[in-house]
């Protein structure tokens, strides 16, 4: 065995070199039907960091989030993606969630007939079970939901409805953040959570997200607007274009993009 080619930290006795890396994506290629959408994407997120991804419509941002979450419409043809050293791409979507990955969808769907509360509780207990933890008690669960929902301005009446059923666009986005607050994932991927939110809701949601910021958690925030990044201040901003990260920089990069658009990246827009 070649000691120079150790892929994973060799355990407690080994060097702590890689322990900070949470999400590690290398040369990721993914396609849907016969169309390649991700074309060799590299991205590394360390625990405690918040990264933003900006990029023109159709550049593949949602595709990246779906591929990471495990939607099986996409075929990964090349590359790797690991979460804390574990091969994400080999895992079923529910196992990825139990491992700590959460995707706040760009377009959350309605699930008539599955009550919000049932859904939240089933999800939380399933994740706890997968991690070998005990189920949450009913009073603890109700207290938790009540507290988080009121922070996000989600009424008890909405919680009694089917998941997202009859929710406005902005309410659906808030409901995504409610789920995130309850499930407490270690990697949060927010796909345009700001779109559809009014000014006040944007602040509420940003507060919810910021409350989850922690040295043990990383966040990947996909957005089109600098505005969100005023509230959720990123450590790194990436520009995605045609299925790849083409530039990365500090938070100033978002301001620059806001001013000049994506023309410099060869986009005809």
């Amino acid at each position, binding site marked *: 065995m070649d000691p120079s080619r150790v892929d994973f930290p060799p355990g407690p006795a080994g060097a702590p070199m890689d322990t900070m890396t949470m999400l590690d994506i290398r040369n990721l290629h993914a396609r849907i039907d016969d169309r390649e959408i991700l074309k060799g994407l590299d991205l590394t997120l360390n625990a405690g960091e918040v990264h933003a991804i900006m990029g023109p419509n159709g550049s593949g941002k949602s595709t990246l989030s779906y591929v990471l979450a*495990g939607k*099986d419409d996409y075929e990964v043809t090349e590359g790797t993606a690991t979460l804390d050293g574990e091969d994400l791409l080999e895992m079923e979507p529910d196992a990825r*969630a139990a491992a700590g990955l*959460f995707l706040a969808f760009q377009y959350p769907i309605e*699930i*008539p007939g*599955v009550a919000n509360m049932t859904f939240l509780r089933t*999800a939380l207990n*399933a994740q706890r079970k*997968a991690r070998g933890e005990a189920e949450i008690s009913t009073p603890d669960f109700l207290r938790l939901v009540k507290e988080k929902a009121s922070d996000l301005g989600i009424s008890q009446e909405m919680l009694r409805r089917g998941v997202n059923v009859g929710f406005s666009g902005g309410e659906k986005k808030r409901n995504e953040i409610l789920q995130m607050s309850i499930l407490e994932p270690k990697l949060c991927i927010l796909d345009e959570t700001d779109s559809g939110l009014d000014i006040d809701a944007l602040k509420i949601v940003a507060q919810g997200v910021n409350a989850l910021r922690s040295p043990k958690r990383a966040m990947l925030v996909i957005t089109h607007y600098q505005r969100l990044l005023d509230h959720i201040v990123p450590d790194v901003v990436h520009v995605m274009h045609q299925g790849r990260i083409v530039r990365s920089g500090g938070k100033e990069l978002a301001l620059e993009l806001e001013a000049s658009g994506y023309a410099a990246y060869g986009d005809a827009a």
Partner: protein
Amino acid sequence: MTTDIRTLRTSGEEAFAQAAEARLAAEPTQGRIGELRRAAASAFAEHGLPTRRVEEWKYTDLRAAVREAPPLAGEVTASAEAEAGLRAIAFPGTERVLFVNGAYGRGASHLGRLPAGVSAVPLAAALASGSPLLDRIGGLAPQRYDAALALNTAMLREGLVIHVSAGARVETPIHIAHVFTADAPLSTFTRMLVVVEEGAQVAFIESHQGPDGIAYQANAATEFYVGDGAHVDLIRVQEEGDRALHLATLVVDMGRDVAFHAFQLATGAATARLSLYGRFSGSGSHAGIRGVNLLAARQHGDVTMVLDHAVPHCESRELFKTVLKDESHGVFQGKIIVRPDAQKTDGRMMSQSLLLGEFAQMDNKPELEIFADDVQCGHGATAGALDDDLLFYLLSRGIPRPDAEVLLVQAFVGEAVEYVEQEDLREALMARIVERLGKAG
């Protein structure tokens, strides 16, 4: 002498025809009922069991399903009755009447305890004493020969005659529990006659259960007379054993301004058929008939109904949800007849199915026979798999696939269960559905 042109009889047909003759000889009933039984026995002797060429049985080959005729059940033993009492589904807050291997369970049923306004007599006792209610039995025969009902009538002995007095508001649902306990195949025939007088309000539960692995045959027929202004709920729970044959016939006559709500949860039997004949004979009435069929392995579940709008201003709503796993086969046939006088009829029929098994199959046959011009009638049928996007949403929150599927199936069937008005019964039904879905996973 007539010559039998149907030379190829199955041994099952032969044996049932003989059994019917034998019972007629042993227990001849006088008068109208005697004639009714003899007519039914000779109709069965003549027509036998339907093949798939008989339109009403197009998707269910009853002749093939009844190759054998298991012997008729004998007397109920005390131990069978005790066992049945333990096995029978307990719906809290209901009053239960028990049938064990097709016979009235005297020790475990307390007819004297039935709520005020409800009286019930075992059919055998009613036949012996000549109850005047029996004038109604067999009075609602379907227009065409129905083999299951004919056999049931020819065998008439076990069952219950129930009377609900005019204006009675019965709060406690009456649960008629049929439990099969024998460890060898038997044939059972039970008959319920339910007469609900004007303005009464009452709910019935009829359950059927039995052990897996035994090819018993249960034939259950119920006749309902719903008087003017009465409100009747019927919930059927069919959880027969996995090799059983379940043949149910439900005949309903609705007077004026009636509300009749039926719901069936069917999860059991190798082959099950519910034939429902509903007739509106008074205007301003509403019938809501819904059901959930959960089928797995090689189960075959058939719901066939005919709703006959004979008078104007009546409304019928049918919604059936079928969930098919593995190689199971579901059938829904619904016919709405609107007679020339039945103006302003409003009838809607819907059958929706979830095909979860690669080899699962659903057959839908809706029919409208409309002879009036000012009516609104419609029907629809859908079939599909679980929605991938919904499934992914649940998976992405960490819910394992089997649990996610159960949640979605629950949501799918929930739209029919919703119509059960009693909240505790609705919850009890949902709990049985969830348990069944988990088990057949």
